[in-house]
């Protein structure tokens, strides 16, 4: 098994400028060494993924034992630069054989027919895995769900207690969330009640849309042909979300997590990775993990954002059959659980994993499993990059008070419809 590290964000002092093309060219040259026959005549499968090599290599070693004719050359990407690297490799005509892809990157690849349609080859996996909705477009599967991520509420028990609230009853409805955020801000001795994302536009829809989805709202209509941002459900959700602002710390996600760790933020929305960090960075911090709040008792759902790590095979992959064999192996529960335990970022898409004894001894992780049942992914639409940009921009305008909730959603609706309109 071969392995290459990734240098992450470039260390050059300044940015691309006219050298955007140079990056492509360089990638072409570097990617040229990626394929062929490995030692002792075994065929090499090039696999790019985002997990630390220490976590994935033992799994791949087992695959090589099970498949003695194949040699896996694994490379670790970073979330900061992985997208550019994949794009450059595709442009150079030398993509990896198998690649881990984030669900928000997937629509663009599907739109450009870059990925192979795997529908017929993975039909037998349909019932063994969940998350097909984020990897399918118009009923065809363009990737295989591997790991699924979602976000839930983290509540600081001490701050709840100080605010006169019962930490064993974390906010379950919008009203309870607002009351808790207000009480913590007012009685928390400088602590803020809620973490509202700001200054990182790219994740705003992930933070707001759960409230809208839980209220029955959506970004596009059921035909995926028209925007549905201006709906009453979305408007009610955005008005509620903005009502949290006076009691919120407006910061980036990582700063929310830092403030929560220091006991200066009462409630944040975060992913399972924080469960791994908190025992190390704040072992004394008492906290509860709870489902996202629903609009009201008995109304709506405790929806959250669903992110998926899927495995895709590119159209001009050199070894598609072998790549698919590796993908099938990776998605088996006995291989996804060790990866989840090692990284803690996302949960296995294999349905059988839910019965793993790990979740019996780790109740907070189990909350995320429960949360996944209500998680909603972004629509897999060819124009998703533009749609996402519009939604995030309009949400940012609303959060910064430049537009009312009504105006922001109306503008989002108009702009999305303009983007979806067929070119003249």
């Amino acid at each position, binding site marked *: 098994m071969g392995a290459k590290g990734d240098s992450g*964000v*470039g*260390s*050059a*002092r*300044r*940015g*691309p*400028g*006219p*050298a*955007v*093309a*140079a990056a*492509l*060219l*360089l990638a072409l040259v570097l990617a040229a060494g990626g394929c062929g026959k490995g030692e002792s005549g075994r065929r090499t499968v090039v696999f790019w993924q985002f997990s630390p090599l220490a976590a994935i290599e033992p799994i791949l070693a087992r695959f090589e034992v099970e498949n003695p004719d194949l040699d896996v050359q694994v490379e670790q990407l970073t979330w900061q630069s992985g*997208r*550019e690297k994949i*794009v*450059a490799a*595709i*442009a150079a*005509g030398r993509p990896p054989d198998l690649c881990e892809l984030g669900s928000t990157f997937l629509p*663009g*690849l599907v739109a*450009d*027919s*870059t990925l192979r349609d795997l529908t017929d080859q993975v039909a037998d996996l349909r019932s063994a895995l969940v998350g097909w909705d984020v990897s399918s477009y118009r009923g065809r599967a363009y990737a295989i769900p591997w790991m699924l991520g979602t976000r839930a509420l983290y509540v600081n028990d001490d701050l709840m207690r100080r605010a006169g609230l019962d930490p064993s009853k974390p906010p379950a409805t919008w009203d309870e969330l607002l009351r808790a955020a207000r009480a913590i801000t007012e009685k928390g001795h400088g602590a803020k009640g809620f973490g509202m994302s*700001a*200054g*990182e*536009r*790219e994740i705003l829809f992930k933070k707001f849309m759960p409230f809208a989805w839980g209220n029955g709202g959506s970004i596009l209509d059921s035909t995926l042909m028209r925007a549905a941002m201006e709906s009453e459900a979305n408007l009610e959700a955005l008005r509620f979300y903005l009502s949290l602002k006076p009691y919120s*710390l*407006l*910061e*980036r996600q990582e*700063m929310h997590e*830092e*403030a929560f760790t*220091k006991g*200066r933020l009462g409630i944040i929305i975060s992913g399972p990775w924080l469960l791994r960090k908190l025992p190390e960075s704040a072992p004394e911090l008492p906290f509860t993990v709870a489902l996202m709040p629903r609009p009201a008792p008995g109304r709506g759902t405790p929806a959250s954002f669903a992110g998926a790590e899927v495995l895709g095979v590119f159209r001009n992959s050199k070894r598609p059959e072998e790549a698919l064999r590796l993908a099938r192996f990776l998605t088996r529960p006995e291989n996804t659980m060790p990866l989840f335990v090692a990284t803690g970022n996302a949960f296995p898409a294999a349905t059988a994993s839910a019965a793993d004894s790990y979740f019996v001894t780790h109740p907070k992780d189990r909350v995320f499993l429960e949360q996944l049942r209500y998680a909603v992914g972004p629509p897999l639409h060819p124009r998703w*990059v*533009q749609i996402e*940009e519009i939604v995030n921009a309009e949400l*940012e*305008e609303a959060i*910064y008070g*430049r537009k009312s909730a009504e105006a922001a959603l109306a503008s989002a609706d108009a702009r999305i419809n303009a983007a979806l309109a067929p070119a003249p």
Partner: protein
Amino acid sequence: MSGARGRPFLGIAPWGVFFAVFGLFPLAYAFVLSFLSLNPLRPDLVRWVGFANYERALASPSFWHALRTTAFFVVGTLPVTLTLAYGVAALLSRIRRGETFFRAAIFFPATLSMVVIALVFKSLYAEEGLLNGWLAAVGLPRVHWLQDPSLALPSIMLMDVWASVGYYAILILAARKTLPREQLEAARLEGLSPLTVERRIVLPHVRPVLLFVVLLNTIRSFQIFIEVFVLTRGGPLESTLTLVYHLYERAFYHFEMGYASALAYLLLILVGLVLLAQRRLIGRGAEAAP
């Protein structure tokens, strides 16, 4: 060509090959790309669009917004960096003890990767960061350095000035060191004040280096990218959307490689024009200076 005459060319050949492959070729390639509609994911759909990418850029509000932001960055940082670098160099030239230590300390930021610097400043500027901790300690309200649209760009500019001053100060200091000591002593014997010595003797002497510093800083400031990438990603409310970050987004998020290349060439033309203007304005006589 004789062996002896060819030897120097042989010596620079490795650099020449490197420059041709990684400098000239991408430059020419990007120029061709700027006339194409090219999605790197679908190279089979490439088509020639002539000047359409340039026309689109010049009609795009985002381009002009990014240009304004970049211009604000350049105009805001250049005079401050230059003044501070000149002042620091003047102070360093007067230090008699521990000069090496102070020179190294001043130059230190230039040895760091901008990614590292940006990550450090990201922590400093955080709501719970050191700067707000100091403000809170003296009873001042916290400042939303990177979250406030009116403060985000100045905060990045401040970081950039800190990161750049040391490098330019050392360049100016090196130029000052070439000034003959006798000339300075003669001026003092003539009874000239330190300010007059600085204005009449030192400043004209270091003028070519100052011009170099201005040109270099202008080029680097127009190319600002890493700071924005690490700290703000162009936000909040696009208040830090610079030209290079804008073209990066078009290239790698929207896969519009041809359009991004056209933006890059517009930037190149713009920087070229600004450099020409700077040379005309402040460079006159610089080459002739002692």
